[in-house]
């Protein structure tokens, strides 16, 4: 796990934290609309969830397919508590997410114990099975989970603390932002604790860890419970944002989204999941509103990332920072830009074909004409398909050429580091 410090240095790390805090503080000033605030709040929730997921995947080397069990447990725990508060329980709403976290951590004591007896594929399969089990149970127990309609609550319930109630979206956003800052700091600090050090060691070489006095399963178990706690906090915050929790919060697709976007953001980096969380919300809220084929585009992006940059977006950024520090970005940025543009070209071609395919299925209702990037194209016209296909192939071909060129440039640059450092 590369930390902030290796990439940025100790002073740079302080600036990064300051910037992080400022962005959290000032973001609502930029995105004032109701939708903007809602998206920001959801991003905050996703940041905590993805960071907690990376505690398992990036630091502990544990590929979980059931992280939604714990975000979901936090959400339902928070929702039940919220309803009790509405009924007169004297528990401040500020502490509802914490309660969600505690409940999820409690649930992880038995479930995490079962999961972490094994590592690798067996661990992944157990989390998958437990995820399905909990999801199915939630659908079968309407008295606890509210059945089809789910459970609803009112976050404005209970007495206001210092005159602040959380009915207003702005107050809610700052409650979330505060949780994001504290949870991020706690998870970052965890890496420098004895448990955090040994957790990374377990990922690298569990056999050796066992000969150093540590029980690898115990290390994995504790990390699992801590990850579940933070996931539960995220779930509790989500319950406050949506004021509803349905059995969907436990769904396999939810667990899959944590895996996918944490990976896209970059598992080898502490900050990677933060990037992933932003992508997650933008994809789920925006992209899914734009096009019906959004899952397909997401799949293409994921495959491309796994093949081209297995360290995620964060690894690409870190590489650029490294190049810039060595004064090499000046020589390489044109190649990177060319790669990005050709990739975009290929993607436009692909997207045109995908959109036409989707339109053909709905031809009876909507006709075969569609508007794509401002251009009106006909899904039944051969020319549209030829044009889109050529765009895709041209983009792919040029991308290959640019990538080859970049690799050559990079080799040339790496081969002569001394000559460059002198300049």
């Amino acid at each position: 796990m590369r930390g902030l410090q290796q990439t940025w240095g100790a002073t740079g790390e302080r600036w990064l934290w300051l910037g992080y805090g400022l962005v959290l503080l000032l973001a609502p000033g930029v995105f004032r609309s109701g939708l903007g605030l809602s998206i920001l709040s959801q991003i905050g929730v996703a940041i905590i969830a993805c960071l907690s997921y990376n505690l398992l995947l990036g630091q502990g080397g544990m590929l979980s397919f059931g992280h939604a069990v714990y975000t979901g447990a936090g959400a339902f725990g928070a929702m039940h508590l919220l309803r009790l508060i509405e009924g007169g329980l004297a528990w401040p709403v500020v502490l509802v997410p914490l309660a969600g976290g505690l409940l999820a951590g409690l649930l992880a004591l038995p479930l995490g114990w079962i999961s972490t007896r094994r590592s690798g594929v067996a661990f992944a399969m157990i989390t998958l099975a437990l995820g399905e089990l909990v999801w199915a149970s939630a659908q079968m127990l309407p008295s606890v989970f509210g059945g089809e309609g789910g459970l609803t609550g009112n976050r404005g319930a209970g007495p206001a603390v210092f005159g602040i109630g959380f009915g207003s979206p702005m107050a809610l956003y700052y409650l979330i932002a505060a949780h994001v800052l504290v949870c991020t700091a706690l998870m970052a600090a965890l890496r420098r604790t004895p448990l955090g050090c040994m957790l990374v060691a377990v990922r690298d070489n569990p056999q050796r860890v066992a000969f150093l006095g540590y029980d690898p399963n115990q290390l994995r178990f504790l990390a699992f419970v801590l990850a579940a706690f933070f996931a539960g906090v995220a779930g509790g915050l989500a319950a406050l944002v949506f004021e509803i929790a349905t059995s969907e919060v436990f769904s396999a697709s939810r667990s899959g989204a944590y895996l996918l976007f944490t990976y896209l953001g970059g598992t080898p980096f502490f900050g990677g999941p933060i990037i992933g969380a932003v992508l997650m919300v933008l994809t789920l809220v925006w992209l899914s509103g734009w096009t019906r084929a959004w899952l397909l585009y997401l799949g293409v992006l994921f495959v491309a990332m796994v093949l081209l940059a297995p360290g995620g977006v964060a690894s690409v950024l870190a590489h650029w920072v490294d190049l810039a520090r060595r004064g090499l970005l000046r020589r390489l940025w044109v190649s990177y830009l060319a790669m990005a543009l050709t990739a975009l070209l290929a993607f436009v071609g692909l997207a045109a074909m995908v959109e036409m395919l989707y339109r053909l299925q709905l031809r009876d209702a909507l006709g075969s004409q569609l508007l794509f990037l401002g251009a009106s194209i006909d899904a039944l016209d051969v020319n549209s398909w030829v044009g889109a296909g050529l765009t895709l192939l041209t983009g792919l071909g040029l991308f290959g050429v640019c990538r080859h060129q970049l690799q050559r440039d990079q080799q040339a640059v790496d081969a002569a580091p001394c000559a460059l450092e002198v300049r």
Partner: protein
Amino acid sequence: MNPVLPALELKGLSKCHGATEVLRGLSLLVRPGERIGIIGPNGAGKSTLFDLISGAQAPSAGQILLGGQRIDGLSPFRISRLGLGRSFQVSQVFPSLSVADNLRCGVLWRLGYRYRFWARLRAGSDVDAEVDALLARVRLQGRRDTPARQLSYAEQRALELGITLAGDPQLMLLDEPTAGMNQSESRHVVALIREVTQGKTLLMVEHDMAVVFGLAERIAVLVQGTLLAFDTPQAIRANRQVQQAYLGTLPGL
């Protein structure tokens, strides 16, 4: 460890892999503070013996006593907590961790940090002092922040030994500590082993006979899973059976 008791006692130790008997009824008594060399041809069961003592494998039959306490069948981390450390023939380092972090992992349990997750390791703590001392001992000061995967082969061997030393074990099992090292590196490691095993007990598997005969106070010769001889280096040199087993390849015969 109670000095009156043997540091390590093996009683009728056997290990079968299916129908193959890797070790057959091995018995051995090691006194506290002894340096024992274990030699034998390939496939004699030397590494399996280390696996049994350190808990990586459970014996098929027999007992292992560490300072008078039964440890056969215990998991590696429990045995490790009783003061036993081992190194590996093929380096088992933590490739993505820095050299200093590798050593830190070896130090933490001994200093009582256990599974602590509520307090950070501060700069300048006892852990850092130990790590610095270890870095100097295995001559890796210049590689402090280098990820272990970037180390050369010999440096990884040095780190491997360093991780084992980090636990400051009373009984140390070293599996070919000088394998793949050049003369000067090997000399340094031998001197280091001599230094760190003062007052400790050492069991060492080694193919370099000069190293074994120079370092060990007694030598156990393992052939096909049985103990052929267990005696002082002089006696081993003079032993006809050993000479036959090794076809006269022992130095100075």
